[in-house]
């Protein structure tokens, strides 16, 4: 019976996602797109942090690599943007692999430092390699086209982002419910036990890391398609931290947590924009209060109180 309601709820929700947007004001349409991109980022990061239990503080770098990679491929090589989106993910995944192989020999704080350093390094390259990235000036990205159809405004881009996001959410969910997902979880819970049951720790840590880089890369490509402009200052350590805070506030290691977290943090930051100067302070206070009273995150708490306890 429960499943029946759940299915109906899901279908209605999906239908609304497809039907409502044309009726939204441009500002809200913009926000919805923005949120969807961050949902992809948070869900991807949750795979490595929430399920596999490995710290990553360089997620913004993969976001940036996807954004720059896809933009440059389409501008310099003239590859259609729709193809550049998966390519952006693939490039980012490739760099994720390069980092993961040496970095995941470490764990805990050491891994945090390595990924943090990687994030800084990548941002520096965006700034300094002016021949490729135009440095601090950033790149203007033309509106993506599909044949003669141009994703000329936020409403059109919305469907591109929505479908991609749904596709990635389904992938994440499938993985988590499979043998690979269980291997991730076993590593988080007890590496000793996991390896005694034949789980190749290094392999699965790398898979999780590369997947989160892939998700971030796709999000970066979509971000470029949607905002039409990228510059290095976006992809810094504060960006990485904000991805992290979405995962934690929503509920780390839960399926819906990162989605809830992304929606919550983006809306919160937007609402606080009105309070010039006070924004960071209030944001900080809210984060602290949340972590004290809701250490498992919004969805983590709801799940514990109302779902798992039944």
């Amino acid at each position: 019976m429960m499943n029946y309601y759940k299915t109906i709820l899901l279908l209605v929700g999906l239908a609304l996602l497809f039907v409502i947007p044309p009726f939204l004001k441009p500002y809200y349409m913009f926000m919805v797109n923005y949120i969807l991109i961050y949902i992809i980022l948070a869900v991807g990061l949750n795979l490595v942090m929430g399920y596999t239990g490995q710290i990553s503080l360089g997620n913004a770098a993969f976001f940036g690599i996807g954004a720059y990679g896809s933009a440059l491929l389409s501008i310099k090589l003239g590859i259609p943007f729709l193809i550049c989106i998966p390519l952006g993910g693939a490039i980012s995944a490739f760099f994720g692999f390069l980092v993961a192989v040496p970095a995941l020999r470490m764990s805990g704080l050491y891994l945090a430092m390595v990924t943090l350093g990687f994030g800084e390094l990548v941002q520096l390259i965006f700034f300094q390699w002016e021949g490729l990235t135009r440095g601090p000036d950033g790149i203007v990205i033309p509106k993506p086209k599909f044949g003669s159809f141009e994703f000329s405004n936020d409403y059109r881009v919305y469907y591109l982002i929505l479908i991609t996001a749904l596709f990635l959410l389904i992938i994440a969910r499938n993985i988590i419910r499979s043998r690979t997902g269980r291997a991730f979880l076993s590593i988080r819970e007890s590496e000793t036990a996991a390896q005694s049951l034949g789980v190749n720790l290094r392999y699965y840590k790398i898979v999780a890391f590369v997947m989160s880089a892939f998700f971030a890369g796709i999000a970066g490509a979509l971000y470029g398609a949607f905002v039409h402009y990228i510059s290095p200052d976006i992809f810094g350590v504060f960006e990485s931290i904000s991805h992290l805070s979405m995962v934690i506030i929503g509920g780390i290691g839960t399926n819906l947590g990162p989605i809830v977290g992304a929606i919550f943090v983006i809306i919160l930051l937007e609402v606080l924009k009105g309070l010039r100067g006070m924004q960071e302070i209030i944001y900080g206070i809210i984060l602290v209060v949340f972590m004290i009273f809701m250490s498992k995150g919004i969805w983590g708490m709801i799940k514990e109180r109302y779902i798992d306890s039944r």
Partner: protein
Amino acid sequence: MSVLSIKGVTMEFGGIKALSKIDMDLEECEIRGLIGPNGAGKTTVFNVITGIYRPKEGDIRFNGDSILGKKPHEISGLGIGRTFQNPQLFQTLTVMDNVLIGLHTLGKSSFVSEALKLPGERKEELELREKASHILEWIGLKEVADRLGCNLPFGQQKFLEFGRAIVCKPTLLLLDEPAAGLNFEEKVNLDRLVKLLRDEMKITILLIEHDMRLVMGISDRVTVLNYGEKIAEGLPSEVRKDRKVIEAYLGEEKKLRKPKT
């Protein structure tokens, strides 16, 4: 040919010898007790076999092939299962998921086929679940399959860890104090299951245990360690009478001589 053959294994931690020149051979379908006072090196033997430690000297052969230098997951994949002194359950996962992870090495699906939920993947998942339910029924935890590992009482946690280690039918099973913390009834059940493993599933078992009645009653042969050295080996009745063993267990002499009930 012995299932497991340990030859001259020495293990040192910063100059302190945890094991010195240990020899041990396990025959097929044997239950071997491994006993000794605390700190004798029993768990170190397990960690050397499973590849967590690499011995300084000596060789370890499993079914005739050396497993020295292999990684723990590779050794597990060859068919050596183990449990831990302190249960290493996946605490926040369900009982079912705990057992399913025990079946990890039997699965063949790749993360790509899983991400896209290809038909072959679904079939494999169903088969794994069936195997897992079967084991849960066998160890008496089927009713609690959906509960989280951390919510089980201690005894059930021990049985779950046991089930997780045997679900993929290893050739050799290493049990590290399986009876510790179990009540009488649970111990009887454990005794029964371990014998069934040997007799019906043809699993060779190496068992560390402090409960003398259990270990002497269940083992075909017993090996005794003290300060990293093997001081005795033989039938339970022989070992029980061995002077060195009695000395090692000074103060526990009485307990050792207690007649079997």
